[in-house]
């Protein structure tokens, strides 16, 4: 579990850096995909709530450090998303395309809903998505398209991690 958690955190850390430095170059209408969110969803689904939420929490804190968002904002949104995604752990089969697409889009909308609730609770100190604006829907579309590719990549990486652990034992 520790090895998987370390790998998860390293992947999420790398993705946060990629999002901040490279992804703005491929933004569509001012929105770029949230690879960290997709990874958190996949980790929570595959590895369960403890690993999913722990890596989501750390990943969120890293995002908070790089952003103007208050410390805890991304951590809360990602941890809560991971928690919801972990409900699928061991009960739902994720195929190669359809489920990842649905999960990518749904997770983005869930994140938007959470930011709206938090912005309401914290009286405008926080930013929230505009449901009538294009950024949310472009991001949701982007995430939906990239989810199958990312999930396949993550599946490959973690299959390698698990097989190494098995061969050692």
């Amino acid at each position, binding site marked *: 579990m520790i090895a998987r958690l370390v790998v998860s955190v390293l992947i999420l850390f790398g993705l*946060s850096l990629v999002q901040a430095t490279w992804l703005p170059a491929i933004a569509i209408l001012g929105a770029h995909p949230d690879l960290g969110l997709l990874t958190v969803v996949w980790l929570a689904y595959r590895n369960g*709530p*403890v690993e999913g939420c722990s890596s989501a929490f750390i990943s969120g804190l890293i995002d908070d450090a790089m952003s*103007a968002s208050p410390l805890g*904002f991304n*951590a809360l949104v990602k941890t809560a998303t991971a928690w919801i995604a972990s409900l699928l752990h061991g009960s739902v089969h994720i195929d190669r395309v359809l489920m990842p697409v649905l999960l990518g889009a749904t997770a983005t909308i869930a994140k938007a809903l959470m930011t709206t609730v938090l912005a309401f609770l*914290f009286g405008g100190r926080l*930013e929230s998505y505009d449901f009538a604006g294009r950024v949310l829907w472009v991001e949701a579309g982007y995430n939906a398209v990239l989810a199958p590719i990312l999930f396949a990549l993550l599946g490959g990486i973690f299959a390698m991690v698990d097989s190494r652990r098995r061969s050692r034992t």
Partner: protein
Amino acid sequence: MTPTPGRGPDAFQRFIPLFLVFASLLSLIISTRSLMGLPERVGLTVVGFFERGFSAVGGLVGDTALSIRSLRQLRGDYEALLDKTKDMEKLQRDYGALEAENERLRDQLGFAQLATFPEVAARVIGKDPGNLYSTITIDKGVESGIRKNMPVIAWQDGTKGLVGRVVEAGQGTSVIVPLYDSSSYVAARLAKSRFEGLLQGMGSEDEVLDMTYVSKRALDDTQPGDLVVSSGLDSLYPPDLALGRIKRIDEPEYQTSLDIEVEPILDFSRIEYVFVLETNAATTPAPPPQSPGSATVAPGVGP
């Protein structure tokens, strides 16, 4: 031994997600009340180190791809610049004479000199990892003298304009909130008529800025294309920094002030280098005199 139901490692693990959500919420509550500047600065310093590395790799790949095309362009630019240099030499002579004359006239009128601030040049290395906040990360921080709330400017196509302000300064990187962020407010002034207002970002670099609280009396002297500059009254930004140009003027009947759409003077998607002005509230110069035509806007940014 059979474990007692509801106890042991399983029960403990069940509480970990709940604990993490609670920890994030607690952190959010504390940080939104601005009690936790230190962890964010430490986080930015650590993460900023890696961010600079990633940005450098991305820059290297991009630069290599562009270098061949750039070389071809450079040759043409070199020829054009030689011609321009000759023109500039003449302009410089004229400018020197005008500057001396301007100084003499200012002395005669008793106007105070506008303060200039030391600038720290920095490269843009990243943007906000999410789509919700619109921050810009630069590769200079506390070790270069950058502090929170320092104004940031940039030059683009010969025009100097305000980019935003520093909201967090790590050891080697800083985070800037740009002018177009919805949390950004700048005390502004119409450069020609000198009427004051408040400029607010709309959250996206593709959108216009919104200038409000401009007296309806300004309508006669104001038209699309006019320059909007900082007024310096917010004690955050120096006066007369170019902000944008008027795109549309609305005169709502139910309001006592105008609602003006302002096109940012800078194209934020093209900003690569910025200059942080080493100033703060204590050293911000006094606002300029209120007489028309006294604005000292950068060359090429006339009202």
